[in-house]
C-alpha cells in the first residue's frame, strides 16, 4: 500500500486542489493530508464525496505520493505536472516581444 492524498479540481474555477488536514481544499500538494493505509484513504474519499455535494470540487481521486521528507510529493509525472504546472514556458516567456 502506497501513501496517498486526495486531489480534485475546484468546481468554480477548475484549479487543482488537495484535501488538507484542516478540511480545507488547498492548492499546495505539500500541505495535503497523507493517508498511510486503506482505511485512511477511504476516509479521504468519503470527505471528498461531501465536498462534491457542497459543490466545492469535481472528480476527486487518490494519487500516490512519496512522503519521505514528511511532505508529500507526487509519484507520477502527470500528478507532478498537476501540482506544479506545465513543464513548458508559455509563449510570452520564451519569445522576444
Amino acid at each position, binding site marked *: 500500500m502506497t501513501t496517498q492524498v486526495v486531489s480534485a479540481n475546484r468546481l468554480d474555477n477548475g484549479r487543482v486542489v488537495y484535501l488538507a488536514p484542516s478540511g480545507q481544499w488547498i492548492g499546495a500538494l505539500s500541505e495535503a493530508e497523507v493517508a498511510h493505509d486503506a482505511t485512511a484513504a477511504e476516509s479521504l474519499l468519503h470527505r471528498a464525496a461531501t465536498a462534491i455535494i457542497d459543490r466545492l470540487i469535481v472528480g476527486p481521486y487518490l494519487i500516490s505520493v512519496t512522503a519521505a521528507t514528511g511532505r508529500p510529493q507526487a509519484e*507520477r509525472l502527470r500528478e507532478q505536472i498537476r501540482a506544479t504546472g506545465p513543464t*513548458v514556458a508559455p509563449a510570452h516567456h520564451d519569445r522576444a516581444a
Partner: protein
Amino acid sequence: MVAIYHYDDADRTLVRERVAQFRDQVDRRLSGALTEEEFRPLRLMNGLYLQLHAYMLRVAIPYGTVSADQMRVLAAIARRYDRDYGHFTTRQNIQFNWIKLEETPDLLHDLAQVDMHAIQTSGNVIRNVTADHYAGAAADELDDSRIYAEIIRQWSTLHPEFSFLPRKFKIAVTASATDRAALKVHDIGVRLHERDGAPGFEVMVGGGQGRTPMIAKTIRDFLPEHDLLSYLEAILRVYNRQGRRDNKYKARIKILVHDLGAAAFAAKVEAEWAEIKDGPLGLPEAEVARIRHHFQPPAFRDLDAPNSLHVAKARIDPAFARWLRINTHAHKQPGYAIVDVSLKPVGGIPGDATADQMDALADIAAQYSFDEIRVTHTQNLVLPHVEEGALHAVWQALGRHGLATPNVGLASDIISCPGMDYCSLATARSIPIAQAISTRLADLDAQEDLGVLGIKISGCINACGHHHVGHIGILGLEKNGQEYYQLTLGGDPGADASLGEVIGKSFSAGGIVDAVEKITVAYRALRTPGEAFIDAYRRLGPAPFKETLYAAA
C-alpha cells in the same frame, strides 16, 4: 467589407440566446440543481473541458476565417480571462487553457459581440466545420469552399436530431484538387468539383484518426449542389441510428462504415436519402447566392503590371528572399500573394500565440490583408490577401513580433497537441519533444534542403496531433512511469492520403530526437534529385530507415 460571413439579426439572436442558455446552465450547476454528470455533456456541447490545471475553453473559428476585429477580441479574452495567450489547434480553433467556470458566461458574451461562440466545439455533435485555409485566395481553387462550409455550419448548428450522436463528428470541405484540409481523415470530407459545368461534391465518409485510424471512402462521386444538406442529413441519420453506442472506442462512423463495408453503408445512405431528397432540405440557388455574397472577393486593386519591389528587395536581402520562397503562396489575383504566418518559432510551443501577437496580427491584417486572417490545420495563421508590393513591409512587421520564421511546411513546422503539459488524457508530453526537435533541426538551409517534411506529435492514442498522417509521426506513451515515444513513417494527409507505419521499438524522450535526426540523414542519402521525403519513403519502404535506426545498436 471584410469577406467573412456577417451575421444578421437571426444569426445574432441564436448566438446571444445560446449564451443566455449556457449562463443559466452554469448557474444551475453552481447552485447544485445540476450534477456534474448532467452538466458535463452540456458544458462540452459548448466547448468547455475540465483539464489538468483548470477549465479549457475551445472557441470555434468556423473554417478558420477570422477578421481583424475578431482577433482583437480573442486577444482581449486571453488577457482578461486567461494568462495572455491562446493555442491554435489542428481543427482551426483556438483554446484557452486557464478558464474559470464562473467567468465563462461573461467570456461567451464578449465573444458574441463579434459574432463568435463556442457552440459544438466538443461533445458528440457535429463539430466546427473546417475548410481549406487558403479558400477565396488560392490560385488553384475552383470556388470558395467557405460558402459550403458556412451552409453546413448553419444546418448543423443546434441540430435537434443530431445533438446526441454516438460520438463526435467532424466535417471538412475543400474546393480544390490540392487537399489542404485533410479530408480523408474526417468523418465526412466534401470536395467540390464540376461536371458539365455544374458544381457538385465528391462525398467521402469514415475517415478518422484516434486509436483506429482510417482513410475515408468515397460513397458518391458527384452530388449536385442542391442536394448537399439532404445527403448529409441522410448520412447522419444512418449513423445516429446504427452507429455503435455500446463501446465508445467503436462509436465513430468509421467503424460503422468499416463493419458494413463502404458499399453497403452507401446503399443505406442512398435509401434514406431517396426518402428526403425532395423535402425541405433542398438547397435553393438563392440561398447559395446569399451566402456567396458574404464571401465576395475583397476590393483588389488592378495590378496588371507585376510589382517587382519585393523581387528587388529579395535580391539584396537573402533572409527576406527565403521567407518569400517558403512562407508565401500563389494568389488567384494577379499582384497579390498569400502569406503564411508561422506559429512555430524554433524551440517554441506549436500553435501558441500571445495576446500581443494576436493584436499585432490584427493590425497587420487591417493594414495589408483586407482585415482577414485564417487559421490552418497545421496550427499556423495566414494573411490571405497581401499585395506583392507590401510583402517586404509585412515581413518586417511580422518579424518584429516573432511571426516570420521561414519554416512553413518544413521540418520545424511541427504539429503538436498539448500533451501532458495540459491535457488530462495524455500519456506523455508532446510539446517538449516538438521543442527539442525544432531546436535540433533549426538550421534553415538544412531544412530547406530537406524540403516538405511533416513531423506530427500526439501525447496519447487519441491522435489530436495528427501523428498517423505525419511523414514522421510521434506518439507519446507511458510504461512504468516513464514517457516513451513510438515512431511512425509514411503518413500523409493529402489527396493521396496514407497512414504511417510503426517501424520498430519505441524511444526515450532523448532518443526520439536522435531518431528523427537519423531519419533525415538517411533520407538525404537515399533520395533521388528533387524527391520529397514522402515520395522517397513510398519508393523505398521502411527497410532502409529501420536499418539506420536499429542496426548495430
